[in-house]
């Protein structure tokens, strides 16, 4: 009577065989490199090459050197700011699209909102540079309107980085929250109105709580993608207040310090991991289904 057992074993082998190539690729080109990087982070660079004694010196140096700690805090500050601003900009847009645009125009409105993002990422950051440059569109308009005397310094500051990030992530938030809002049963909103809740009260007591999962998802995505990005801060933020990815590439490119860059990469990964765990906790407290 072992037929069931034997069948389940061949079944397991078959399933494993289908999954094997993907697992091998992930192991060889993702997990192994992480392990190699972890090993390198415990070595140190010397004048002549690499000292292979295992030490936490790189981590100690990272947290001891104010410029590097500052990069970590710049990253956290930028990502947090981008998350909040993107939610503040994106949520009302999603709400307006879901409830104040006729149903048959909504798809077109969404397509139009995504359209500009088919430019290359690098080009998009460059385009913001055109807008924010001292002699760019914004400054020339401000001066033309007589609002300022000389050009306002926006390009190559953290403000420009946040603005450039918000451009993309506000769209992402709007899309995610829109999908969340459309999943709310419209009868719930009618029921709330029927029971005497005003528009504001309905929003605060029904719509907003029901859109929390979409808010959490988009906030998590925004934070994690923004904190790991190199392009936008490098093009728009310049070299004034470096974020962690810039500092990592600086270690590699200018100083050739692979062990230090590895250690910093692991710190960056740890930050993202913490964000993941926080997000996981936040979504777990949601009522199931």
């Amino acid at each position, binding site marked *: *009577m072992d*037929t*069931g057992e034997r*069948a389940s074993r061949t079944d397991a082998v078959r399933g494993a065989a289908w999954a094997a190539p993907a697992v091998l690729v992930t192991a060889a080109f993702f997990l192994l490199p992480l392990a190699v990087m972890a090993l390198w982070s415990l070595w140190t660079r010397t004048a002549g090459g690499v000292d292979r004694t295992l030490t936490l010196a790189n981590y100690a140096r990272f947290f001891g050197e104010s410029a590097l700690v500052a990069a970590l805090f710049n990253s956290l500050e930028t990502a947090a700011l981008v998350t909040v601003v993107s939610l503040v900009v994106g949520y009302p847009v999603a709400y307006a699209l879901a409830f104040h645009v006729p149903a048959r125009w909504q798809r077109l409105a969404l397509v139009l909102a995504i359209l500009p993002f088919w430019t290359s990422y690098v080009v998009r950051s460059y385009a913001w540079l055109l807008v924010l440059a001292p002699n760019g569109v914004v400054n020339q308009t401000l001066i033309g309107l007589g609002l300022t005397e000389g050009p306002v310094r926006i390009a190559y500051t953290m403000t420009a980085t946040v603005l450039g990030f918000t451009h993309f992530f506000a769209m992402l938030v709007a899309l995610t929250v829109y999908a969340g809002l459309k999943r709310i049963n419209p009868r719930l909103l009618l029921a709330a109105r029927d029971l005497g809740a005003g528009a504001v009260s309905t929003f605060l007591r029904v719509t907003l709580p029901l859109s929390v999962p979409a808010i959490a998802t988009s906030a998590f995505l925004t934070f994690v993608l923004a904190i790991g990005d190199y392009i936008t801060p490098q093009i728009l933020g310049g070299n004034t207040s470096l974020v962690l990815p810039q500092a990592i590439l600086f270690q590699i490119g200018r100083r050739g310090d692979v062990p230090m860059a590895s250690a910093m990469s692991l710190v960056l990964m740890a930050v993202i991991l913490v964000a993941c765990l926080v997000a996981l906790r936040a979504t777990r407290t949601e009522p199931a289904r």
Partner: protein
Amino acid sequence: MTLPQSLALHGVGKRFGAATAVADASLEVPAGSYVVLLGPSGSGKTTLLSIIGGFTAPSEGRILIGGADVTAMPPAQRPTATVFQDYALFPHLSVAGNVGFGLAVRGVRKAERRLRAEAALDLVGLAGFGDRMIAALSGGQRQRVALARSLVVEPAILLLDEPLGALDLHLRRQMQDELKALQLATGRSFVHVTHDQEEAMALADIVVVMNRGRIEDAGPPARVYARPATRFAAGFMGESTLIEGTVRGRDGERLAVTTADGEFRLAADAHTGAAGAAVAVAIRPERLRLAPRPGDVTVATATVSETVFQGGFVRVKARSEAGTLLLAKVPPEEAPAAGARITLFAAAGDLVLIPGDPA
């Protein structure tokens, strides 16, 4: 091509963890029978069908088709074919592509495939539908395509999982007749799962009543209806009045049963009725009448609590002095009023002895 073959289950059981889905199911089905597995949801009828089809491995017991043990055989090799509840038609293939699928995977050539698929479609009344896409069909048409797809591979036994469940009532009765005709035409055994007892009675040569993973009763529908083996079979295959009692003793061919409504003497099977055993006396509602005929026994005197006009008859609910609920179907012109005191009679042979304690 497989010939019609018999089906036998020997002590088949299936446990999912601690839950028992099917327990000790044994059944003998001659070739060319229409078998209906009847039971409420969760009774194990679908699991049993899935075990016969080879989709679920039984925890114990054996399945024999045409005398050969197929217990360890995967579905692809079993001489069975299944019509799934949602039909499981391939949306990426045309009607002909669906019907010809089983032939294609056997390496049957295109020209022959085409012919046999067309013949199968003809059999189910869909001649000329071959080029349609599945999405363009109605529910009833999909049902027929699913039938044709399973029949074209000429299975020894066709398995049908609630095949009429998704159809509306009118279509269901029509398809019911067509299924029966199809089974007779092909001469193969059909094993059909349903929870609809009318469907079961209309179709089955053998009805198998299931409850909580067990086979409660199995036999021709007329027998199962008239003389159900268990309390559950009595209740699920239509309604019954149940009068609870205990066996007082055996009197030759007859068994004396003491109840709160008096003593009854019933024909007894050899294996039922040790003195003191709890039993029930069951009577079908259409067997109860208000005026006695020669040879009738008095069942009970009762007060009518409710009458419901149902067209050809009136359904009467009444409560006896001992508190037993009685159900009777009487002609409209004889119907008593609510509150009236009535006496109910029945032929002695219509009283059925059912063993066991009340559930």
